[in-house]
């Protein structure tokens, strides 16, 4: 059990053009027992951060603390961390048992103790046989399904009995259906073990679903740090706003005038709590999630009025793209509504859920 702390952590990679900053003076604390997500697009530095915590990368500057110890210069094997790689890195020439026992084998633990630990970890992860299923312990990784491989990798990490788990895109190698199952399983496992866990993902839904807190990263910096609720409800800047949410947030450029935002030939009420914070004439970006619109075939005051350009069926709902004076505005309506393309609609954003950004930063 341990807390993780980074102090001014910096990592640059040399390249032809002089150097790429993968981590830019990061200060970050992950609490003991926390399930922590590093979220961001490709190349944002999240994997570098994870690998630096593991000791696989040596930082250019700053320090890493795990528990009470400064581990910046400590070898990866001596940090008390266990890492699960994106491709699981199960050794193909070893059986499941040998794979799970490997962390103990390199520590010189006796065969009997190894066996005990393997059984414990395997049953925790549901790898031992039951009356109706066959155990997987004697198979080789090549003979396992993707989901089974993932559980073996988790079992191996568990058997190492680490203070910290590090997961690199733990779910990305599973197909869509299995991924949801594995997600639930992973969250339950982390709750039961209560081991500090840091995981990397580029999938915002995964981060929202699993993490206690999320760090959204871009270009080696943390753009927002908060609980899934905070990050989803109040993205601190337009980068986070556009990254979080399965249907992207409408980010519409406009100007403030008289407690309203003039945008796409429409006049929308300022978000709650921002009145007076922004002077008239200021260029702003209005953020409104498609989920929080009231859509009506009849004119609504303070709403976007436009024609339906595209209607995409999302199953339980419908995502409409409205053409509002040449600007695309997206809104979600219930499954019972089925507007025809070309139909005229009015979409009113919920004032308590709209957001205002000036120079890309959240106001209020």
């Amino acid at each position: 059990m341990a807390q993780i702390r980074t102090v001014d952590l910096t990592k640059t990679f040399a390249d032809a053009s002089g150097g790429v900053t993968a981590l830019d003076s990061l200060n970050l604390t992950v609490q003991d027992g926390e399930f922590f997500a590093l979220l961001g697009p490709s190349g944002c530095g999240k994997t570098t951060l994870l690998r630096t915590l593991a000791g696989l990368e040596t930082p250019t500057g700053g320090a890493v603390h795990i528990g009470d110890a400064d581990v910046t210069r400590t070898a990866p094997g001596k940090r008390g961390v266990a890492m699960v790689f994106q491709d699981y890195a199960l050794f193909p020439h070893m059986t499941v048992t040998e794979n799970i026992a490997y962390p103990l084998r390199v520590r010189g633990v006796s065969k009997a103790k190894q066996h005990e630990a393997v059984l414990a970890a395997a049953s925790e992860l549901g790898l031992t046989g039951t009356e109706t299923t066959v155990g997987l312990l004697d198979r080789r990784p090549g003979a396992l399904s993707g989901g089974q491989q993932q559980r073996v990798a988790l079992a191996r990490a568990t058997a190492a009995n680490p203070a910290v788990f590090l997961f690199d895109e733990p779910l990305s190698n599973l197909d869509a259906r299995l991924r949801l199952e594995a997600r639930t399983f992973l969250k339950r496992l982390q709750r039961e073990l209560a081991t500090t866990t840091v995981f990397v993902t580029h999938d915002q839904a995964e981060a929202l679903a699993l993490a206690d807190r999320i760090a959204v990263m871009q270009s080696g910096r943390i753009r927002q740090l908060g609980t899934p609720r905070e990050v989803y409800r109040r993205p601190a800047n337009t980068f986070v706003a556009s990254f979080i949410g399965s249907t992207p947030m409408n980010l519409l450029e406009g100007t403030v005038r008289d407690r309203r935002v003039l945008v796409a030939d429409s006049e929308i009420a300022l978000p709650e709590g921002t009145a007076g914070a922004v002077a008239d004439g200021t260029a702003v970006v209005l953020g409104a999630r498609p989920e929080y619109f009231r859509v009506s075939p009849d004119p609504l005051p303070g709403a976007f009025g436009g024609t339906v350009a595209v209607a995409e069926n999302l199953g339980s709902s419908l995502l409409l793209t409205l053409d509002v004076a040449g600007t695309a505005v997206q809104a979600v309506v219930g499954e019972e509504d089925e507007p025809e393309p070309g139909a005229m609609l009015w979409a009113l954003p919920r004032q308590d859920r709209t957001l205002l950004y000036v120079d890309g930063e959240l106001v209020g």
Partner: protein
Amino acid sequence: MARTASPAAAEDPAGLGRARAAGIAAPALLVVLAFLVFPALWTLYLGTTNYRLTGHAARHPRSVGVDNYTTVVKDPAFHHSLWLTFEYVIGSAVLGQALLGFVIAWLLRDAGGRVKRVIEALVLLAWILPSSVVAFLWSALLDRDQGTFNALLHTQGTAWIVEHPMTVIIIFNIWRGTAFSMLLYSAALTGVPPTQLATARMFGANQWQQLRDVVFPHIRGHILTNLLLISLWTFNDFTPYQITGGADSRSQILPVYIYQTALFDGQMGLGAAIALLMLVINLVVALVYLRLLRDRRLERVA
């Protein structure tokens, strides 16, 4: 996917460190330096001496400057040998092995069953049997009085090896080395997308048009690599010596000529000078092929 931009190309995943890496690479590099690089450089020096296998010059070799080289370059025997070597390389490797290897690979590409297995096995056996054995097999085949070949053709009394030594070693080397080209082209042909061939066939392309328009553009790199390797191997091939015995100047390709000069006649300095010229020719051949290969890569980028 998100991994692409991250440092997946991280160096040294096992934490070996430079010192230990150098340590475990050292034995191989030392052996290569001592028994490959050094002899190659030593050839340079030897070529400038009058070093002999026996006699006074064996104990006290003397520098003779570039005399050896001028002697060699002016020597008609060397010219003759060089010419024979080119005949040998062009005839047996470039035209023989590469062409036959491709034809076999092409004809058998989707053949199955026994015919393919038997032909492949025979071609491969010819390649992997010890050179001393195959030399005897061919001597037996072509023997003047009792050879199978004469018996088949009813030409008893024809001493093929004596009468047509170059033709014999060229055909012998085609027989001996076609396997490599066959294997390489078989592998290359599996990389030609079947859908492209099917498309060409659908438009009515005949075999030759399919080869020219679909197959060759795809395997051009393989062809060049193949030609480079088999040219170099054939250039340095010593096996003909085991068939002809080496004394007959009508079939003295360079490796045999060097052997005769340096170790049989004992003129080691002179032999080294020829060897060096041979190295240079090899190098030029290699560079030409590599240049062609690189041009092809650039074309791809463009």
